């Protein structure tokens, strides 16, 4: 991992079109501002990792699950 030291107000550029700027440091929390092309997906790391993990798990179903799924989900529909 590349490690850089920056002060508030300074920034880092990644490639030609991404700018990360340190905006504020207060009580151990750091606010950053990010300028990037809008098609660039930007998420908090822990959220991205959680979704990524869930997507991988969501591909692990087996053909046998289908019948059971539609049965139990259908039953749920009936309740409502």
């Amino acid at each position: 991992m590349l490690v850089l030291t920056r002060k508030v107000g300074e920034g880092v550029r990644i490639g030609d079109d991404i700018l990360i700027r340190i905006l504020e440091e207060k009580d151990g929390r750091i606010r950053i501002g990010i300028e990037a092309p809008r098609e660039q997906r930007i998420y908090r790391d822990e959220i991205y990792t959680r979704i990524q993990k869930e997507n991988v798990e969501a591909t692990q179903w087996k053909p046998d699950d289908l019948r059971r799924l539609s049965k139990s989900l259908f039953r749920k529909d009936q309740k409502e």
Partner: protein
Amino acid sequence: MSTLDTRFGTIAYDPEQTIVFVQGMIGFEHLKHFVTVPSEEDDFLICLQSVEDGSVAFLLVDPTRYFPNYSFPIAEDVKAGLQSDSMKDLVVLCTITVHQDQSITLNLAAPVLIAPSTHLAMQIVLEDPKYSTREPLGGANS
């Protein structure tokens, strides 16, 4: 029609009906093309099969069947990405996870938006903590 080898066997699909993920599902950014495979069991379960990787398929469902109040604002960049102007043109689906203990959860935190008019799709992330990646949806014992 074209054919595709999946882990459920060979399926036939119409290339014209391919759904293109603008950025891929999160963690599957390299997979852009998907087809919906009709389920033999029920039509409310949608199987989204990757064209590029036969081993990757997601099960999706309309979350409002179970959570009628589920809604969220759609950012302008998402509308632009899907080339769709209004929310009502979009189909909102959530992925289902079948866990080892057979419980079933719905990922409300990262819905999949599909624009039927453009065949473009995108998975977005809702950072609102009220939306769980694992909202229980019953299981074997429910």
